[in-house]
Every structure is written in structure tokens, then in C-alpha cells.
């Protein structure tokens, strides 16, 4: 599958960002590389969507941005999950699982559904 063509569903980026920060604070570049590596290069997050998403999440209070030094001693903005962000992530993961399971059930079906009773 062509990785570049794997478009993110709307709203999926938010949950990916939240998940990426579960392991600890990261700057924006760190988040893209984490998502890329974790998805085995299948998901590429574009800068043009990443940063607005980050700022939006920060504005909602799900993330907290702090300035710090990067690995090579550059000034960088690190994002950290807030408590609100953490519970939001839990909720979104649950929704996502339910959604994925439902989609999988439909797509993996081998026979039409039984007629409804009553």
C-alpha cells in the first residue's frame, strides 16, 4: 500500500497526537517521527495539519506547551498531556475501538444478517 496516500480520517490526527504524548513530552517534530515510526512509515503527518491540531488541542486544555531544550540543544516547544488530555485519549480510544470493531464486523461478514425478530 502506498503510504503517502493513506489519508487520515478527520479527527483521527487528534487521537494520534494524544497517544504519541502518552510516553512523555515531545516537540512537534518528535510527534511526527513517532507516529511515522510507530505506523511503520504508513502514516505521514503533514506539518500543515499537525501544528494547527497541536495548537487547537493546547487551546482546549488537552495539551500543555512548555519551552525546553531539544536533544541537540535547540530551543523547542514541548507538549505534554494534561489530565484532561489523558482522559480524552481514553475516551477516544474506546470510541475508536468500537468503531473499528463495527466496521470490521461489516467488512468481514460472510453472510447477510439474520432477519430481525418481533
Amino acid at each position, binding site marked *: 500500500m502506498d503510504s503517502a496516500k493513506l489519508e487520515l480520517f478527520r479527527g483521527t490526527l487528534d487521537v494520534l497526537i494524544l497517544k504519541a504524548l502518552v510516553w512523555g513530552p515531545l516537540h512537534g517534530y518528535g510527534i511526527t517521527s513517532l507516529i511515522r515510526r510507530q505506523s511503520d512509515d504508513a502514516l505521514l503527518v503533514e506539518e500543515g495539519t499537525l501544528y494547527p491540531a497541536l*495548537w487547537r488541542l493546547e487551546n482546549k486544555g488537552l495539551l500543555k506547551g512548555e519551552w525546553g531544550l531539544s536533544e541537540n540543544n535547540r530551543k523547542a516547544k514541548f507538549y505534554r498531556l494534561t489530565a484532561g488530555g489523558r482522559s480524552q485519549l481514553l475516551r477516544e480510544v474506546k470510541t475508536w475501538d468500537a468503531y473499528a470493531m463495527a466496521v470490521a464486523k461489516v467488512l468481514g461478514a460472510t453472510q447477510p444478517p439474520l432477519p430481525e425478530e418481533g
Partner: protein
Amino acid sequence: MTPYRLWRRYDRLLGPDSASDVKDELRFHLEAKIDDLVTQGWEPETARQEAERRFGNFRNVQQIGEHIGGKMERRKRLKEYWSDLLQDLRYTFRTLGRDPGFTVVSVLILTLAIGANIAVFSVVNTLLLRPLPFPHPEELVRIHQWNPTAGESTMTYSTDAMEGFQEKTRFFAQVTGYFAFSGPDNVRLIGNGQPQPITGRTVAGNFFSTLGVTPVLGRNFSPEETVKNGRPVVLLSYPFWKRQFGANPDIVGRTIDLDGTQTTVVGVLPDSFDFGAIFSPGARVDVFSPAILSDMEDWGNTMDLYGRLKPGVTLGQAQAEADTIFPTLFNNNKHPDRGGEYDAGLFGLKESVSGKLRQSLIVLWCAVGMIMLIACVNLSNLLLARAAVRAKEFAMRAALGSGRARIVRQLLTECLVLSLSGALLGLGLAWALVAWLAHQGSIALPLLSSLQIDGAALGWTLFIAIAASILFGLAPGIRLASANLQTVMKDGGHGASDGRSHQRLRSVLVVSEIALACVLLVGAGLLLRSFLHVLDVNLGFEPSHAAAISVSYDDGGYAAKRGPILQQIIQRVEQIPGVESAGITDNLPMSTNRSWDFVPKGWDWRKQDATQDTFVYVVTPGYLHSIGMRIVEGRDIRWDDNQKSQAVVIINQTIANYLWPGQNPIGKIADAGGAEAQVIGVVADVHETNAETKAGWQMYVSETAPQYGPAGANLVIRTKLPPASLASAVMAVLRQINPAQPASEFKPIQMLVDHASSPRRFFVMLVAVFAILGLLLAALGIYGVISYSITRRTQEIGIRMALGATAGLVQREIVLNTLRLAVGGIALGAIVSLASARLIASILFATSPWDPTSYGDMILTLVAVALASSYLPARRASRINPLIALRNQ
């Protein structure tokens, strides 16, 4: 990640900068990308190009970032502001709760001051500021003759003149008027049971349409109802409709019996229209009937004139036009030879309603403003005293990182909470006051019944509450915030250093407070003395022990029948035990009035000065005695003064002194009210309208004279008993003679006098109350400062007493200290009072604005108050036990 908060502390010294944050963040991203590409083997330059290419639209992202960043920043600031405010408020309630004495006293002071201010503002707003309750009230004009010498008759116009002006004017859209000579209870409502006296007014047919008043029920008068032999109709006033007819809407179209005439009710006027409130303060009107102008053309000057200017016409233009038209108008078109000799002054209706009160109201407003200032000074003083105690607390907060602005803000929050609480309670107080005032029908002030706390008053409340909190909070706030941290902490708040400048500021405050109280006292004193002078005026009659009741009788219009009926009434009333004497007059003093000509026989117009219009009273024998007038020369009217050939007249001293100085006027002949009459007596002058204006020309003619017709009848009795206790006996007599006599009550003559002086009484009362309030607040201020200074100097006083100072010495010093403050304040206040004497001079009566007695009284009062309020603290100081005082330190 390595957080480096320390670095961030200096990063944004000038406050947060979200735009450059966004730029930094994105730039880091690019550089990290380039690094990665270089590690993968790209050339640095191409790596940069590649990174930028992959990033896409950098500027676009940056803009989004700046937008979101700005939004976050604003929200954060707002949140901080609110959380600071909440914190301040929580803190305020805690500190105020810890010091309930201070809180209660300051809120009480503010309640009184703000409450008084709101109430007075409502009065000023209603009487002066708010437009009259008519559409386009600025177009409404009152028209009256320039120089009214003898009451209503010399202010009014004849119906022909009114119609003439209406025809000729180009600047007036409408000219209207009402019959000026209606007294109270002039109509009998005949229904089930006894006839009931009600008050009717006769108005020109276009009166309500000119004002822009539309009936809530029914309609206005129609043109055919204003002509001779038209259908008799009335409009009801709203309160009368409610009272008499239980607000029954079916009344419209039905007929009621007024004075024996079946009269159709065509409508009910709106509740908002109060005739009395605007045109005759303190009077109630029940029904309005249309004037049949053709019936009235021979009655002389009867109409009070009003008009509505065309839109855009100025008063000046209209006045210029009136100056040319009025001299050409006739009193009676049938007698163009008798010139009308009219002139006309045009006054805005609002001006004519409340213009005379402007000065009084301004004085009142100033007085209440001074109360507010005194209250602020007092609060400042209390806060300063607290500030000294709290200095350590604030120093601590400053040391822990609170900025000065924040500390001042905290203080101002406290002040705001105090003054808003005061404003809230003050509103309650003002509401009660205003509700009470609005129902004082006996005060002859216009528009009083429409008094209420409205939006403007609420706005004013908020304004003074905030202004006051800034005024009294800022000085102590700045003082506190600028206190030197170290000194305060070291001092433990008890050093002498705090004392000096602090004490000086508080002394200045006390002096200004005394000065303000002094101005108030002088003003109140002057007004009070004026009022006493008004009460002291010899009215020319004796209001005490006299009472009047309106009488109705049926003489069929014949003067010859009138005499015996009235004589019978008076004889039988005088037989009632307790009645000393009785008499009948048509008009009572300080009530309604009218005037006729009085010209001595042989008076030469070309050589001699003009005579004046003369107040006329048609009276029976015994009236002059019953009302308590004094016959200076000659005799009273007799029942047989009914000769057709020549009438008799009693004149007042003013006429006698003007026409026949140094001569005996008895026996002189004059043309009195169009008939030849012989002067048979002279009476002392009567103040016919109120105690403050000079008496005009007055004459008294006989009820039995065929030449004259009375305008109604009032029975006046003189008795030492309460008049009400005689009412039923008198009413029984009147009913026997005339079964149609309506039930009415005795009005003490004193009531008429009180009514005439009620505006002055009202202002005096208010200003006096304010002066007392100011005095109390000043006393409180003095007490507070002196008592506080003694607390601070306990140690010093202890040492001095240990070194041999006696209790008397300590007391004397403290009292002298207070006196020094008082003298300073009095001097300052006296200067201000003297300088502002002109403001108050015009509302004084027979009192100089520099009246030494008032000033003397003020000085004595203030010194006494200063001494009294320093006595308690001084006594406490003299009882300081040196041992305890020193050990405490």
C-alpha cells in the same frame, strides 16, 4: 526534554509574545528536519530546500498559529483577571467579616449618605431634569400676562382673547386653556344616598389633544360638545374612575348626575395624566368638562392659557409674535371700545411648572452632595485607621510578591464592596423615602406624585457608589501601597514614624469634614430662620381655631333670596354649642382668588397713576370676625347692606394708604367691580396667596348686595373645639336648609396656611435633616481620629504620666488639640459659606445670607460637638495607667 524555566523568566520580559513563539516553534521543526535529511546524506543546502518544500505553506500555518495563540492569550488574561477578582472578593469578605464593627459602621454611613442622595436625585430628576409626561413636551408653552398684580384674574385671558390669538397666530399649532377659577369640591355628584362633593375642571375642548393626552377608555371631547346647548359630557380622571366606579369600563357612554344635570361620560383619562401635579400642585381633580366658550365671553379674564408650538418654532419667535398680537386682542369682542390691554409672557411649560423651584432644588442637591463628601471623608478616616493596623499585613503580602497595583486593587475592591452594599441598602432607604414623599398630597410641589426610583436613579446610584469608593479608597490605598516595607516590618506598626504624616492626613480630613458640616449647618440655619420668619408673618387673619366647610344652597339665582337663606344658616350654626361665630365667604384666603377693578370716583386716568386689579371677596356679616381679620376703621358688613342704589365695600389698608393717604377713607365712593360702592370700613392686610408675598389690593363686598354675585360659599366657624366634633351638628343644620347639601368635611384654616408654606417646610425639613446627619458624621470623624491618636500614643502618655503629668493636663491637651481642628474647620467652612451666600440668598425669606445669628449658632454647635466628641477619648487617656501602658510595649 530539559526544562529551563529560569531562561524563560527573562525571555519575555515585555509580556508574552505568541507570534514569535509560533515562529520559533516552526523554525525548530524545519531545522530538525534538515538535520535528519543531512544525516540521511543530503547536502545542507538542498536539505533546506527539501524541508521547506515538504512543509508546504509556512506562512499559512504561521498565521493560524498566531490566531490561536492570540485567542489563548486573551482568554488567559481574562481568566487571571477573574480569578484575581474572585480572590480579592474572597479576601475582602474575610477581612470585613473579621472586623464587623468597622463593616457595620461604614456600611451604615454609606447607606444614609447614598440613600439621601438617591432620594434627592429622584426629586431633582422628577421636578427638573425629566421631561413632562407629554409627547414633545418642549413644544408646550404657558402664556400669562407679564405683571400679575392680583392673582389669577391678572394672569388669565378672556375666551374671546384666547380665540382671537388662536386665529391670528402662525407659530402655534394649537392654543388651549382651562377655566382658572374652579375650587375644590365644586361639583355635586348625585346618585344613591347623599350628594357627594367632587372636583371638576372646565377645560377648552382641545385641551387634551393639545397636550397629547389620549383617554385610555372612550374618546376626547368632540366639537359639537363644546358649543352652546351641546350634549353635557365629562371625562373622568383615572383615580376617580377607580375610586368611584370600581374601574368599571362600562361607565363610558353612561350618564351620571352632576349638579342635577344628566351628563354623559365620554371617556377615562390615563393614569399617567395628573392635572394637579402639573397645573395646580397638591390639588385633585375628578372630572373634566368642556368649556362652552360662547357662554363665557362675558365673564372677563377666566382662562389660563397654554399652547403647543409648531415643530421647530423657538420660544423667542413665538414671543415676538405674541408681543404684536396680544395688544390687539379684545377682552370682549362685543365691546371693542374696552381694550383688552393684554400682553403675554411665554414660558416653557416645564419652566413654568418647576422653574421657581430650581434654586431650592439646587441647594438641596448641594446639601446632599456635601453629605456624600462627609461620608467619604469619614470612610477615608476609618480606612486610614485600619490601614495603620493592617500595614503589617500588606507589607507581608508585598514581601511575598504582590505588586503595589495589586494591593491597591485589593483595597479598592474592599471599598467597592462597602459602597455597593451601602448603595443597595441606600436604595431601600431611598425607595421608602420616595414612596412616602409621593403620597404627601399636602405638599404643594408639582409632579410629586410621579416621584419614583427609575432607571436614571439606578444609574445615578451606581455612579455615586463607584465614585465614592474611588474617592474614599484611593488615598488610604496609595498611602498603604507606598509605605516603606522595611520600616513597617521593623516597626511592628507601633512606631512614632507612622504617626506624623499619617496623623496629619487624618487631621486634614477631619478639618475638611468639619468645614463641610459647617457649610451645611449655616445653610440649614439660614433656611430654618427664614421658615420661622414665614411662620411669624402676621397673616392678617387668625388661622388657629377657625375651620371652613363648603356650603351649597338654592337661591334660584336671586340675590334677594340669598340673604335670608345665608342669614338663617349662620344664625342656626352660631347656636350650636362651641361655635363662637360663623360667617360665609366665597373665596378663602390662600385658596382660590379672583379680582375686579376698584377705581375711586372721579379718578382721572390722565393725571393719576393707574389703579390695580383688586382681590374681591363676597362675604356675609360675621365672616371677618370668624376668620380673625381686624377691622381697623369703620364697621363690618350688615345684613341690610343690600341697597340697589349703592353698594358698600370694605377695603384693605394697602388700598387706603395708596388712594387716600392721611385721609379718612370711610364714606369715599368708588367704582368697585362695576358698581358704585361706598367705603364703610378698612381691614388689616391679608396675605391672600401665601405668607411670603406682599398683600395686594383687597376688597370685601356684601353677599346680600344685588350688584354682586359670589363664586361659591364657604362657611367659616371660629371655635375652641376640634372642628370635626362639630361637623355632624353643622351638617344637620345645612341639610335642614338644603337637603341637597353634599357631605363635606371641615378644613382647618391652618391647613390652607400650611399648604401654602409646604414647599418651604419641605426644603427646610430636608436640609435640616441633612445638616444633622452631617453633624453626626463629623462628630463621628472627630471621635475616631482623637480616639485613634490616643490609642497610638498610649505609651507616650504613659511615660508623661509617669513623669508627673496630671490627668487634667493630659485631658486638656487632647481637648485643645480637637479645638484646634474644629477652629480650622469652622474657619474654612465659614469662608465657603460666605462665598456661596449668593446661591442660597434667593430662597431665603427676610433673612440675610450673612445672618450673624445663624453663623453664631453654627459655631457654637460645632464647638460643642467637637468638645463632646473629644471628651470620651480624653477621659480614657487620662485614665491610662502608666505601669500597664509601659509594660505592654
